[in-house]
């Protein structure tokens, strides 16, 4: 779901945020939930039209085309067994999908972009919020709610200062 689709013939917003997850799978909803709350916030450093947000269940190969024309990409996703409340990492292309499923990891998506567009992808980061349970029909777990709150505050900071140097200074494992 593109929440702010680009207008034909216009330059695309330089920042793309891709939130990945399924609302009906417990903590898998962390990515979309964070995105929706983020869109309700004011981001003083970022004017309307400077960013675009996409929400989807999973990353697929065609999302590589959504990266075209961007200068920055932020992937927001839930993690299982990942650091709590979240990690924030810069990612690079060239990592193989490995034993994923029908889906791509964010680094693999960058690699697909690089191969099909024959150019380097935008600077890309992953904000991964730790989830605890992913069963069908579950709501967010109590721990995930805490991670969501922490991640939201952190993400607001990223939108307030979008300089690459600032984002790089905020990396967190």
């Amino acid at each position, binding site marked *: 779901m593109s929440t702010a689709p680009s207008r034909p013939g216009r330059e695309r917003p330089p920042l793309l945020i891709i939130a990945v997850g*399924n609302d009906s799978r417990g903590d898998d909803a962390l990515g979309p939930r964070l995105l929706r709350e983020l869109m309700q916030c004011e981001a003083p450093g970022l004017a309307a039209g400077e960013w675009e947000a996409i929400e989807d269940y999973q990353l697929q190969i065609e999302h590589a085309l959504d990266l075209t024309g961007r200068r920055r990409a932020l992937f927001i996703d839930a993690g299982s067994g990942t650091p709590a409340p979240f990690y924030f990492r810069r990612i690079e292309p060239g990592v*193989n999908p490995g034993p994923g499923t029908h889906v791509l990891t964010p680094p693999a998506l960058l690699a697909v972009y690089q191969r099909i567009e024959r150019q380097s992808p935008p600077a890309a980061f992953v904000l991964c919020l730790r989830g605890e349970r992913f069963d069908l029909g579950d709501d967010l777990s109590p721990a995930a709610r805490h991670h969501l709150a922490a991640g939201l505050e952190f993400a607001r900071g990223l939108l307030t200062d979008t300089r690459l140097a600032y984002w790089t200074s905020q990396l967190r494992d």
Partner: protein
Amino acid sequence: MSQNLETAEHPETLRRVAIDPVSRVEGHGKVTLLLDDNNVVRQARLHIVEFRGFERFIQGRPYWEVPVMVQRLCGICPVSHHLAASKAMDVIVGARRLTPTAEKIRRLMHFGQILQSHALHFYHLCSPDLLFGFDSDAARRNIVGVAALHPETARQGVLLRKFGQEVIRHTAGKRIHGTGSIPGGVNKALSAAERDALLGDVYTMIEWCRAAVALVKRLHDANPALYSSFGMCRSNFLSLVGADGGMDLYDGWLRARDDRGHVIFDQVEYRQYARHIEEEVRPWSYMKFPFLRQFGKEEGWYKVGPLARVQNCDRIPTPFAERERRELMDYAGGSPIHAVLGYHWARMIEMLHAAEWIKDLLHDPDLLGTELTVRGERAHEGVGVIEAPRGTLIHHYTVDENDIVTMCNLIVSTTNNNQAMNESIRHVARRYMHGREITEGLLNHIEVAIRAFDPCLSCATHALGRMPLRIELRDADGNLVDQLTKDVDGTVTAGS
């Protein structure tokens, strides 16, 4: 048919190899092989270790919510669930026959899903195995490797996916969480601008699909011995066919053939599915094992999906795809193809068929109509069946007088193929793993056989950090002797 390797006589004396979960297959599948001291396979099983609970998720909801909420069951084929549920709810609202606009919008949506799903499977999931070989370096046996050596092929795969998603977006309203199909019809027609945007690309898509069929045929021609035997599992076939026996992926009647191609039953109304299909529960898997009642569980299991559909129908109603179907049937030489790599050939024929149908529909003026829904006499029970990308998908509901769903039964495509997938890995295990060292390449043969069916095992969750692949070798006492681990970045590590 494989000799029975489902249950060994003395499993306590055998070594255990577990592949958990299966690479590039959704959800939580696991393969276990029990080997004796001579590395002879004595038992092979594909386990589904996650309980889905789909039916419980849906019961208690208002019926009109169901076509939207079932999309959350699966992130890979949400449109198939959306349409199958809509067809069942058509019965509930008494919509015996949709308006021409509504039916054609739904068909367009469905063919968009078929196109994008088949493109994903061929270019992203199976082409690395087919283009590089099952034993090739695992580090490059993926879509990135394909993109490096075959950049135009990889690009076409991405753009075919994108086109299919655009068809879905225009007909369902959104790329995901679509609401376009509703009980009794659809809630929007296509605009002329949307139609023209799709028409601008569809002819290129058809040409790329034709090239994809040609590529698969070249692979068959290059290694006919492999393609004619790999993962062989002789079985019955099941699919919908149209009133004239032609391929119809959206609607029709059930037809089954036996392993020699003889018709078992034909033109069966799908609301009668339970009279012909029974599901067996086995203690070692959460996924049921359907079979044709008249043959029983030993002989009644069947294959669904592209290989079944292409060989079950009498014709395909689009010219390029029909020409390719005839060539496949000629290649088979009068006896059905049961080797599982044939799925890829059939899948590409269906992808071509979908692209041709999309083109025809886009030229149909009904697509821009304004009569979108019908209603009739209410019913309390509805069955909707559709040919999803992976095979026959059955949705069955009962609804009470307060519009609440009181019963839901889903038989998804992967469940229909459950026994066939198990038989296929047994064939591969017997052929490739006897007396051999266990290597990643050999184990990938097992995965190649499973992937040919394009299974989707409870696929709507995907969180980062999941899905490592672990192979455990255990002695008769259950002690861990050795293990092979494939991490999320594709790195294979031997030892603990």
